[in-house]
């Protein structure tokens, strides 16, 4: 026994990546184990009930899971864990959701006590209708998502055999002239289509939009695309026109300014969640056409009302796209049960190794507060503390120094606080893009940045998502939304698009030492560190002293 896998008693699996069998092992355990951490030597996977049930849904049985564990394990696998795997997987499929010719959607069971048990749950009672026979109960069609989610929480996941509606057909093809879907993008599209609905996780810059386009070309049906903001909507449109047979006229934009409904409609989360007089007037969009596919961009940001509505959309195919499935509100499992399980996932480093995203050097610059700042920080109100240390004057000097060092390259300075950004913009003589900047102005500045007319751009968090800045090679983060891990990942994503000359990207995070800024930074970096993007830490003093500790 000298396998690459170590099975821990807490149901995590440790995979030694340098082992010769590591690849085979990874393939064997991927169907049922979630990749949790992927640092340089040992990857951590976790076996969860959800993962095991997804494996069952994908046609794997307990024996395959046990075999995979036993075959690759370095040490004997605890018997209790194997028993637990078998028992957990046996819970799947006792309940099935299906279409009954006369009663519509029904929940049937092969194990009557289970049905009795769940029907006694107060959470299930409002979702079901009449008992048709001892083993069957009717389900309100609109509660299909809700009942699946609730059953999952009760530990009796239902197998959904009710299928999908095809939606209104619409011809969409990929226009692969001069480019082609990358292998992992193809796998992602296949994984999604085979599974019916689900989430595809790819690093920023790895071409998630193309996975969306690929899925649309598979579905060949009217599509609703939900994105985070208007700029992003325009870019989706641009990209779809460029990469598919769709024309401008076939693609509608549904946002604060335009309300077009076309065979392919791109809507923003913001407009959908606008509330007037206690109702969401724009949620009707979901019913305005017979959509064959709904794409959720940046699914980790999916707002709560859309969640609720998604639960009612269970009969339509759903594709979620994201770079990080960590949600700061801990509702990852809701994404899984409402959109669907994770259908494709690749470690960032692996895609980097294939050359599809740029290698990045992450550096945390530790800034010392001056004595007077330290005193002021110590006496600051609790809620003001982060703002205070995140916007310290020393950070400005360090940022200037970094911009100076990388002069001539395309640099993004990203921050949270407008005052700080304005000040930085002034000192760096660079334009600032913030929430109040009109869309036209934004696009103008982005174009200028793209063409190299301007080389430094200061942006607030409006630019966190889905803006396409192909040649940004340096990002300097001066402040952020507290300890948000996914924001950190998104920001790193800004510089990961492959560079024309293949050189390395740099991501700087300027952090005030011995303050909560440092604690937040540690939390923010954790996701990336677990993806293998470890930060080097340098002292600002050395940087300012003109030494070059970065290289």
């Amino acid at each position, binding site marked *: 026994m000298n396998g690459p896998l170590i099975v*821990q008693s807490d149901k995590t699996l440790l995979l030694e990546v340098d082992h010769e069998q590591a690849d085979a092992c990874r393939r064997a355990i991927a169907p049922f184990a979630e990749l949790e951490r992927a640092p340089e030597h040992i990857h951590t996977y976790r076996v969860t009930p959800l993962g095991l049930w997804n494996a069952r849904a994908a046609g794997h049985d307990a024996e395959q899971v046990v075999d995979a564990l036993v075959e690759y394990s370095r040490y004997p696998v605890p018997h209790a864990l194997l028993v637990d795997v078998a028992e957990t997987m046996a819970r799947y499929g006792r309940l099935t959701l299906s279409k009954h010719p006369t009663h519509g959607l029904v929940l049937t069971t092969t194990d009557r006590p289970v049905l009795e048990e769940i029907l006694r749950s107060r959470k299930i009672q409002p979702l079901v209708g009449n008992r048709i026979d001892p083993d069957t109960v009717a389900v309100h069609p609109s509660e299909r998502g809700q009942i699946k989610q609730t059953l999952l929480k009760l530990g009796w996941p239902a197998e959904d055999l009710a299928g999908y509606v095809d939606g209104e057909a619409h011809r969409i093809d990929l226009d692969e002239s001069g480019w082609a879907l990358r292998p992992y993008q193809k796998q992602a599209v296949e994984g999604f289509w085979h599974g019916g609905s689900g989430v595809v996780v790819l690093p920023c810059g790895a071409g998630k939009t193309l996975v969306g386009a690929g899925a649309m070309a598979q579905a060949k049906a009217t599509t609703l695309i939900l994105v985070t903001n208007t700029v992003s909507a325009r870019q989706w449109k641009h990209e779809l026109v460029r990469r598919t047979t769709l024309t401008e006229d076939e693609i509608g934009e549904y946002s604060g300014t335009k309300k077009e409904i076309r065979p392919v409609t791109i809507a923003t989360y913001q407009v959908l969640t606008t509330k007037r007089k206690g109702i969401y007037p724009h949620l009707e969009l979901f019913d305005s056409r017979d959509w064959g596919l709904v794409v959720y961009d940046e699914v980790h940001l999916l707002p709560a009302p859309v969640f609720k509505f998604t639960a009612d959309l269970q009969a339509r195919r759903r594709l979620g796209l994201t770079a990080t499935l960590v949600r700061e509100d801990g509702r990852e499992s809701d994404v899984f049960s409402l959109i669907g399980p994770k259908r494709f996932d690749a470690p960032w480093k692996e895609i980097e190794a294939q050359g599809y995203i740029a290698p990045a050097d992450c550096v945390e610059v530790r800034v010392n507060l001056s004595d007077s700042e330290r005193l002021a920080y110590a006496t600051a109100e609790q809620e003001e503390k982060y703002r205070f240390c995140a916007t310290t004057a020393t950070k400005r000097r360090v940022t200037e120094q970094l911009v100076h060092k990388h002069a001539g390259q395309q640099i993004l300075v990203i921050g949270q606080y407008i005052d700080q950004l304005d000040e930085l913009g002034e000192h760096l003589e660079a334009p600032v893009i913030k929430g109040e900047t009109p869309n036209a102005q934004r696009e103008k500045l982005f174009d200028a940045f793209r063409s190299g007319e301007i080389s430094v751009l200061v942006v607030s968090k409006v630019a966190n998502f889905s803006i396409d800045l192909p040649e940004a090679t340096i990002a300097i983060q001066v402040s952020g939304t507290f300890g948000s891990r996914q924001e950190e990942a998104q920001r790193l994503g800004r510089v990961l698009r492959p560079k024309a000359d293949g050189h390395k990207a740099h991501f700087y995070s300027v952090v005030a030492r011995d303050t909560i800024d440092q604690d937040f930074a540690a939390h923010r970096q954790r996701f990336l*560190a677990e993806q293998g993007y470890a930060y080097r830490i340098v002292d600002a003093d050395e940087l300012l002293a003109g030494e070059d500790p970065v290289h």
Partner: protein
Amino acid sequence: MPEGSGGSPRTLAEALRARDDEELAALLRARPDLLSPVPNDVTQLATRAGTRASVVRALERLDRFALQTAEALAVATDPAPYGELLALMTGDDRDATTEAALPQALETLRRQALVWGGDDRLRLVRTARELLAPSPTRPSPTGLGPTVTEATAGMSPGRLQEILAVAGLPTTHDPVSAVAALTSLFTDRTRMAALLDTAPSDALAVLDRLVWGPPYGEVTADPTPPVRWLRDRGLLLPASARTVVLPREVALHLRAGRAHRTPEPVPPAVVPAAEHRPQIVDSTAAGQAFTALTTVEDLLKDWHEGGPAVLRAGGLAVRDLKRTAAALDTSEQLAAFWLELAYSAGLLATDGEADERYAPTPAYDEWLELPPAERWGELAVAWLTATRTPGLVGSQDAKGRTLSALGPELDRSVAAEVRHRVLKLAAGLPHGAAPDPETLLARLRWERPLRGDTAGTGKDLRARVATWTLSEAELLGVTGRGALSTHGRALLDGEPVDGDGDAHADGDALADRRARAVKALAPLLPEPLDHVLLQADLTAVAPGPLERPLAETLAVLADVESKGGATVYRFTPASVRRALDAGKAASDLHTFLVTHSRTPVPQPLSYLIDDVARRHGHLRIGAASAYVRCDDDAVLGEILADKRSHGLGLRRLAPTVLAAQADPGALLEGLRAMGYAPAAESAEGDVLITRAHARRTPPRTAPSPVPEGPPVPDRTLLGAAVKAIRAGDMAATVARKPAAEQVGPRPGELPRTTSAETLATVQAAALTGSALWIGYVNAEGTASQRVIAPVRVEGGFVTAYDHTADEVRTYPLHRITGVAELADDAT
């Protein structure tokens, strides 16, 4: 059994005397209770072997077939020839398996001195016969009733003759020959068959109901025709006014001669439930063995600086058990198992202090130093021989008290024997086969049928212990995936699988077997590693068990995040600070990581250590009783240099500040004595001015006046008092007879009589229904006098109508100090 040429032995003593030494030794080995104390002679040995307690004990240790044989002998004639026994066991159709097994079973009974006499005159020891033979109150396990002779005892001769007549037999002169005639009819298969052929079919149905016992049936005063038909022919005989019994001879005829419905001459086989590759079994068991070691270590490490308190009644509080279970990340039942295991192995004990707590023993430290396989050997042997049964933890004893882990009530003498037997049976299967628990339990039941079902628990203790043994063996790594491992087998070697089951092997052999098991296990356990893998996300992964010093240092420097085959450690600022607190310098930590990491130390980790070290010890804290402050640091230098200041424990903290161990008062005195003129400072830094202080108590209320005498009683209290006085009055003033040869007690004093007198008087009073005057001391020790009229005296209690309390009460006899009869005119 040697046949005495001068005829068969007449008594058990004679039979024993005729045995050779080896046979006697075999008897004593099988029934060791006969040896304490050592009997003086064979007569005494025979007497003791015939005592009820000893016979019961011996019967309980018989397997099912030997017991069935004994039961058959109990319903046979006494003495019985071998042929009769054989017929009873095999029936008319002569079951070959039973016939083949019978001599062996008989031999067992003879060896145990339960049966004696030659094959022509087999005798079951009288006590055993009494225990096993049917009586009206206790049906025989065979389901057979009394013989015709026994059942007709006391029947009128006329009635007997009537039966003979109806049964078609000639009348006889006397009852004895009548019974003999009836018996010979019932035992004659041919005539009996002819008789039953004439029986109405519903009469046969009645017989069918009774044939396999219980043989008694209730009848009305006017029985139904089929019962009457049977009764008229003696096929049913009256047992009492309302019951009839099926005579043994009739039942045997209906059973085709068999005493047992299903003789079980062959032990039920233990069947494999699953078969695995022996390598898989061994490696799984070894993995579990290793887990067991780490679990016990974790447990005791948790209690390193003193464990939880011992309950007053002994054992561990439920709360502490829960906490331990949470710390081990397991269930309470399993936590109890690990605790008991450590306790049985002597690694854990109470500290014997006044405030008693649990703590690891010195043996634990020695144990820790052993190689892993040896450590396992210690645990395994302790488990195998222990009588502690952790499975009972949490259940309740007969008095409804919950049994606590490590408590005094957990020893069950049967545990070690059953545990050994279960493993032994598992060892009887081929290597790699896991026994099916049900068949295993069936086999255990066959081996000790009488030691089963103990009151109401549903499952008897032996079966429960056996079930626990299977799961505990798995936890301990004696078995892997249910099958006995090579090292588990080695623990048991040396005894035949079908040994008589006494697990008390001598120490030497056990040590040998332990050594063999350890040797088998050692190569299967993972080798301790001397390196870890450091990763940039501030984790370290030990891909296997670590060498102890490495593991200990790492456990201080980083937090354990996940355990199992490997260990994942996470470095945090807090964990690094812990290492610095433990006296390590930052450079030590760097060296430690470089030495033990197989991968380069990631920059963030080095930075983390330096960053924490930079701030570590930045603030210093100590205790001082007083300080000296002076703007002129030369004066402070002077004071420090002065020899007279040494007793004040002065230390310079800063140029202008000294800290002192002496309290402010002593410091002032000391410095004044040295010729300085110090002034005391208040906590706010003001100079304190000495002047006389007025001393005050905390706020107090003025005392309330104390009136003379008690408060005036209220109406209720008065009523109750009067009633009590009246009752006492009656008890004290009734005239009573002086007790025999004793001056009656003075009024107001309790009567005193000896217990024999008390009993006699009370019994007499119960018979005559007369009232008595008694002195009584209740459970709280309060003495009272009462007038009672005894109703019943039994079991040390008197039930009586109490005139004083005006109700029926029960008094324990031993609490009655004495009795006196009431004078006649008082009642």
